[in-house]
């Protein structure tokens, strides 16, 4: 008995330490990636210069904003494969809107709302039609891409110069922003989303849904409605990512971001999200997105060819998932 009472705080302390290691793991990974490339490149002052870092940050924004939405979906035990297509569709909508003479703000909101609508459709297909998320969103991947090409006339949609084009300039205007305005938007959204997930009833229900759907339902959570909210909310973010993509390209491109959903899912998984649901953090996903961006940038600056880059990122995803499996199986034993 004595041993028992003693062991309880000990276990919880080691649990506490492990939780923090899990949480800080991705961050240490990021620092490691940066350090290794700084050494490999041989000119750390250039790799770590403000110029290079703000380039990488601007390049991360689209994946990062997408990963905020994807983190919520993955924590809830779902998945969304239609992100890349949604980004193309909302980008085309934004460009068409600006072209049609609407103010950039209106066009931008239209793009974001279409993203929300795509998410809503996903949510309805999953809950009302009882189609598993993988299939429902796989279907939407095709539908949204097709609609994007259709309304764009299978061409890129060029748009006149507006402030939308300046959202992701690597050298921001005005200069006192230090990094592109889009980077600040992504940071703000990440902070808000992290607080919502951690400290609100909605956020705790998302975790509950992903951890054990039946139990969540038994506790009185309207799981179907919650799922629709989650996909629609994530859709808003995917719409914003589409706006950012259009800002970078200065045009709506219906073929852009094919396969980007995999980058976004990878960012969440590298950041500690579990595809079984119930686990994941916004902070981790942001770090995951940064790890991939710094890897790409680093590989290019070292002068490695593309195929090495693809091998590294591919291997990184598998390792991250393997660690995820290993961790969850240990969790089941304990």
């Amino acid at each position, binding site marked *: 008995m004595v041993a028992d009472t003693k062991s309880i705080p000990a276990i919880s302390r080691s649990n506490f330490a492990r939780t923090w290691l899990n949480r800080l*793991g991705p961050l240490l990974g990021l620092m490691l990636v940066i350090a290794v490339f700084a050494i490999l490149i041989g000119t750390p002052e250039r790799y770590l210069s403000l110029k290079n870092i703000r380039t990488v940050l601007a390049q991360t924004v689209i994946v990062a904003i997408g990963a905020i939405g994807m983190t919520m979906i993955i924590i809830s035990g779902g998945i969304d494969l239609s992100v890349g297509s949604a980004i193309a569709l909302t980008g085309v909508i934004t460009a068409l809107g600006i072209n049609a003479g609407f103010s950039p703000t209106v066009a931008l909101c239209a793009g974001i709302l279409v993203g929300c609508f795509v998410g809503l459709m996903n949510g309805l297909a999953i809950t009302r039609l009882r189609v598993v998320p993988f299939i429902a969103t796989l279907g939407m991947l095709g539908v949204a891409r097709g609609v994007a090409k259709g309304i764009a006339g299978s061409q890129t949609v060029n748009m006149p110069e507006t402030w939308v084009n300046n959202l992701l*300039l*690597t*050298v921001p205007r005005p200069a006192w922003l230090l990094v592109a305005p889009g980077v600040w938007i992504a940071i703000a959204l990440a902070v808000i989303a992290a607080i919502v997930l951690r400290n609100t009833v909605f956020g705790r229900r998302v975790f509950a849904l992903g951890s054990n759907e039946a139990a969540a339902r038994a506790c009185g959570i309207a799981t179907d409605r919650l799922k629709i909210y989650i996909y629609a909310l994530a859709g808003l973010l995917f719409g914003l990512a589409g706006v950012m993509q259009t800002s*970078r390209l*200065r045009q709506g491109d219906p*073929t852009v971001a094919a396969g980007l959903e995999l980058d976004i899912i990878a960012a969440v998984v590298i950041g500690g999200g579990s595809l079984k649901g119930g686990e994941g953090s916004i902070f981790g996903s942001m770090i995951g997105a940064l790890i991939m961006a710094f890897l790409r940038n680093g590989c290019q*600056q070292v002068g490695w060819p593309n195929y090495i880059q693809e091998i590294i990122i591919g291997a990184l995803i598998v*390792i991250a998932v393997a660690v995820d499996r*290993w961790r969850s199986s240990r969790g089941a034993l304990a």
Partner: protein
Amino acid sequence: MRKIISILTMLAAIAALGCNGSGSKTGKKKLTIAVIPKGTSHEFWKSIHAGSIKAARELSAQGEEVELIWKGPLREDDREQQIQVVEGFTSQGVDGMVLAPLDDRALARPVEEAKSARVPTVIIDSAIQSNSIISFVATDNRQGGVLAADRLGQLLGGKGKVILLRYAEGSASTMEREEGFLSEIKQKFPGIELISTDQYAGATRDTAKRSSENLLNRFGDEVQGIFTPNESSTAGMLSALQDIGKAGKVTFVGFDTSQMFIDALRARQLHGIVVQNPFNMGYLGVRTLVESLQGKTVEKRIDTGVIMITPDNLDAAETQALLHPPLDQYLK
């Protein structure tokens, strides 16, 4: 924790492969030049790669040491990926870039940002809507259309009924070829009647074949000459003609090259193809950039040349050199 260890092991393993070779040598500063194609797998881009290596070797032999970095977008034909490559080279601070932009608008911002970061860019292959470039080194597409019109007009003796099957709406390079063809026919061969010039082949061989079939159903009995302005439209029209047994009976001039066209030239089913010179494009792209870096003034627009290949000059040394650039010599 495991994740970190895994990443560490992996990076260490890669580092151990010994891929990096950035030993800085003493003496005159080496010029680092990035060449960024639209993709890397097609023969066309391999020729550009080989040409740029030739330029780098020649310049190095002349005492201007040039290090070439060849890097395409991670996903072929993906604008966002190409932008990231350009931005990466900009912040890396290369001495200059040679870029074949995937889009004339989307790549304008990165090129302008590169210029303000003192990284000059030479554009090859396709135009860009920006004045922040050193030079535009590419095929004179209009001239290619003119060559085709001359060939077709001569073979038909200045009279007959001719079809132009256009490529696709909104493709600038092929539109120039079509306009060059049309204006030359109208000016030089008033006896030739253009019976169809408003049909489009579409993006692929498959769509090209379908619209060729439709055109031939309508005009098959009267048509005497045909021009198609790119690879897919030429291939589509050629196989449509072969299917109905008309290949060889209609005078047919195409654009670009593939083994199928060479065989058709030998069988006299094709009577000429206009061929660009990607090897020269890569070569002149790098040379122009280096000359500009050396402080010399360079032309704003440099033509890399087109030639007409016919059944008669197919085996000439010059033609063979163009059709089979010495890739092995440069790409190893």
